[in-house]
């Protein structure tokens, strides 16, 4: 390792911030808020440094040598005895073109949500401590290359999220918080079981020639590393890889959230305070799809191909079902929540196409959904802060009262619909191009396009109900945006517009890795047959 430990820094900086926040005495609420802002801003700076040092020609995926900013240390080391295997767990982090966009997104959204947290005045210390811990968990998930480490980060997020929804949330916060917690834990216990199964089936060869079981996910991607009798080993004729795949997929699907595991999302979103909704939609949902790309695809390529139609089908259901649900909502925030379900369906559909353009679209959609939906939730937050209601039918004609605000709203709404010129258009069209180009899911792709129509329907309808038409006299006291709100919305708007006009900033970042992933998936049958499968 001949570079500064940037990834460790970006991951654990919030922990340092958390300690500072905890040490600050009561009454220094402002200092706590500033600490959080500083830490998250520093994360953006580090993310910028990482971007500038990122080598666009290295693919990553299954090749440890083409991951970047790698840090690898022995974390746990236990020498074995005859019946107890040597245990080695690495602190192994690094990024490739799939995790890099997510890293940028996390840094960006964390900062925006920290800005949005400025007006939370209840138990400020606890809030910011929990918030920073959450940010560490999110960063850690995207940089981990060791399953054990990944699992720790994945679970570390749960408790802060529970408290952030449960203490600072809306009227039904307790219900929403526990529902979120139990759903996610339910998914992650299966992940734990799969992790243990993979660990006991996969061996890594150390420099000394000694073979040890490993949590290294890159080793798990190589069928040559599996033992003959491991329960998740492709060499074992009675292996449980299919069941394990479903278990792991379910764990991630709950996070996406994929139909029928989506029911926690509307509750969590509606009850969570605005910044947490932003984090939830902006970053947390991406962990599900990221996990599938990082774990399910390369570790179980043969099963991925078996179930690819189902992934696309669930993607289609998400798109259409989410859109229909969104259309029926009277609560502005719930509408956005269901639109998230719909938009995450595009990611699933794009992933299922197994070609470069589709997967690029999926990852780009992950990023775009992160920025656009963050904007949408901020927009709802702005109106809720002023009017203390979110009922769509209670508004009307806000455009005359709050013209600048409505301008931002229009950009965000058009972004969500997928209007050309805004980033959402690129990713959605890539998803459709990819899906259409992959024979087995072509029909599903065609059906999914209905989702675009429905999306335009509920978004434009909402625009009309809330912002257009005659002003509801009740709201003639509402002020337009203040400085802090500008600071939150302007960066997101700029990013959304720039990526809409010149998407290569982001596409270049991920291109080599996506190609490597597609290539790996295509070559995996030969790889499996070469070891006698």
């Amino acid at each position, binding site marked *: 390792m001949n570079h500064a430990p940037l990834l460790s820094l970006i991951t654990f900086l919030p922990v340092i911030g958390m300690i500072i926040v905890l040490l600050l005495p009561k009454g220094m609420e402002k200092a706590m808020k500033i600490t959080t802002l500083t830490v998250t801003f520093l994360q953006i700076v580090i993310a910028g440094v990482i971007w500038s040092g990122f080598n666009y020609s290295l693919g990553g995926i299954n090749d440890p040598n083409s991951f970047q900013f790698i840090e690898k240390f022995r*974390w*746990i*080391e*236990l020498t074995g*005895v*005859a*019946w*107890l295997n040597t*245990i080695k767990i690495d602190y192994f982090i690094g990024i490739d073109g799939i995790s890099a966009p997510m890293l940028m997104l996390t840094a960006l959204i964390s900062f925006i949500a920290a800005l949005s947290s400025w007006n939370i005045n209840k*138990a400020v210390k606890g809030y910011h401590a929990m918030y920073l811990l959450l940010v560490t968990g999110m960063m850690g998930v995207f940089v981990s290359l060791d399953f054990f480490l990944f*699992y*720790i980060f994945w*679970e*570390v997020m*749960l*408790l802060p999220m*529970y*408290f952030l929804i*449960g*203490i600072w949330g809306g009227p039904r*916060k*307790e219900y929403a*918080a*526990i529902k979120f*917690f*139990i759903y996610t*834990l*339910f998914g992650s*216990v*299966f992940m*734990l*079981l799969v992790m*243990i*199964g993979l*660990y*006991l089936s996969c061996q890594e060869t150390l420099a000394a020639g000694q073979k040890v079981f490993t949590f290294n996910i890159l080793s798990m991607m190589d069928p040559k590393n599996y033992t003959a009798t491991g*329960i998740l080993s492709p060499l074992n004729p009675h292996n*449980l890889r299919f069941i394990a795949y479903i278990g792991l997929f379910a764990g991630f699907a709950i996070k996406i959230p994929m139909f029928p595991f989506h029911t926690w999302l509307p509750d969590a979103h509606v009850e969570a305070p605005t910044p947490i909704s932003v984090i939830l939609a902006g970053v947390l949902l991406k962990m599900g799809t990221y996990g599938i790309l990082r774990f399910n695809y390369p570790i179980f390529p043969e099963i991925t191909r078996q179930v690819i139609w189902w992934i696309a089908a669930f993607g289609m259901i998400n798109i259409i079902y989410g859109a229909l649900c969104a259309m029926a909502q009277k609560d502005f925030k719930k509408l956005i929540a269901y639109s998230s379900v719909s938009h995450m369906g595009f990611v699933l559909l794009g992933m299922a196409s197994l070609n470069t353009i589709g997967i690029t679209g999926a990852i780009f959609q992950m990023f775009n959904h992160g920025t656009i939906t963050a904007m949408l939730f901020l927009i709802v937050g702005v109106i809720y802060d002023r009017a203390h209601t979110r009922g769509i039918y209670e508004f009307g004609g806000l455009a005359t009262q709050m013209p600048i605000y409505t301008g931002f709203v229009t950009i965000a709404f058009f972004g969500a619909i997928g209007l050309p010129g805004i980033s959402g258009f690129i990713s959605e069209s890539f998803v459709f191009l990819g899906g259409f180009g992959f024979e087995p899911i072509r029909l599903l792709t065609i059906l999914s396009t209905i989702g675009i129509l429905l999306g335009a329907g509920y978004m434009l309808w909402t625009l009309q109900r809330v912002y257009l038409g005659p002003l509801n006299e009740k709201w003639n006291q509402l002020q337009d945006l203040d400085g802090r709100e500008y600071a939150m919305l302007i960066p997101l708007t700029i990013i959304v517009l720039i990526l809409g006009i010149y998407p290569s900033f982001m596409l270049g970042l991920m291109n080599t890795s996506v190609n490597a992933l597609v290539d790996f998936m295509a070559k995996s049958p030969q790889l499996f047959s070469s070891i006698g499968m």
Partner: protein
Amino acid sequence: MNSLNFFNNLGYAWPETIITLFLAILVIYNLVYPQARRALGIISLLGIALALGFTIQQMWTQFPTDPSWLSGFTRMLIPDKIGIFFKVIILIATAYVVLFTEFSEELRGTFDRAGEYYALIFGMLLGMMFMISANNFILLYVSLELVSYSSYVLAGFMKTSERSSEASMKYIIYGGVASGIMLFGISLMFGMTGTFYYFDISRLLMMININSVLFLISGIMIFTGIGYKISSVPFHFWTPDVYEGAPTTITAYLSVASKAAGFAALIHLVRNCFVGAVATDGYWVMLSHFYWKELLVYLAILTMTVGNLTALWQDNLKRMLAYSSIAHAGYLLAAMSVLSNQGLIAMVVYFSVYLLMNLGAFFIVILIQNKTGSENIDDYNGLGTRMPFLGACLGIFLVSLTGLPPTAGFIGKLYLFLALVDAKMIILAIIALLNSVISLYYYIRVLRHMYLTKGNNESPITPSFGSVLIALSLAVPVLLFGIYFTPLIEWAKTVVLR
């Protein structure tokens, strides 16, 4: 037997001898200075420290490779490291309970009988030490009774409290029945084999294949006595009532120490009577047709599921922790049911962690009980803001009991599932995992009341310096072992190797 031989015989029983000695010292000291309560605590801690020293020193003792050729009193005891491990667990638990007693407000009314209290704890301790290393059914039975009688009295120690007396009464009735059944099982076993010694039974089983229903019945009957101590379903009915009624210090003690003794006795019974050899891959080659595996698997499933599902409905925290301790006994039985060294490692790791987190949880409950006079969950409303430090500690303990990273409880669960998946017992692993999801609900419910619900009283509670130290001494290892668990596993490995 000459005198030299007598001391040689005592060789493996030095810790027990010291405890007996201190038991006498406690009683005599109390007779001479009836008012000196605090001194009794200090004497107890001293005795425990000495015994702990001798126990740990035994880790480096060279034990005979074939203990079945020992003679005299030594033959009664199994000298092995797993026993030493459980003794260490029990001694540490006792030390903590003695410390907790200093903080307990509810025991304040009984301070004039403090001598009895400490003497009874030492009596129980002595019983548990012998129960752990028993190599003989009679010794097992006698030590189990010694533990039981001491704990009956301790459970009902607050004579004036109706709840406490009721707990004691229920405990005696259930205990009496269980030990009666066990004694009957032992007599059947003696009738069939002609010996009380584990090693002799094991040698007999190697030669002939006893395959009668009677053998199975006697085995299950003997298990009843142990199952009652570890509160495995269906012998668990006493647990919630006794845990709720007994003084909280004693509840903490019962939930850790007497469970440890029960599990140690179970391990020794199975390993020394029914295991022929340990295969190179760590799995035990079982003798005869005793269905240990099936028995333990079904009991584990029943125990954890009943424990967790019943805990969901509890409003009293002590009662909830009682059911949670039943559930944890289920996880430990699941680790036991693997019948391998891996399973044993999982048990050792789990118990080390369980000691820390369960004692910790009970300690915070004691401190809260001191302030609010109740352990009802509704009285926990808003406590998180009133006592941020202790609230955070309880949070750590409860999260660890759920088994979420980065706490030590996760490592315990991890090793349990490693052992289960390695043995390809996937169904049991899935059931255990679903159980831990269920358990999240009731553990987190406490945090919900503490942090999410507003209380009537907003005045902050400042914990005393001593209690902060004790809570830290339990909470810090829980977090540290969650992040860096190498020492824990190294220790477990040393212990499991014979």
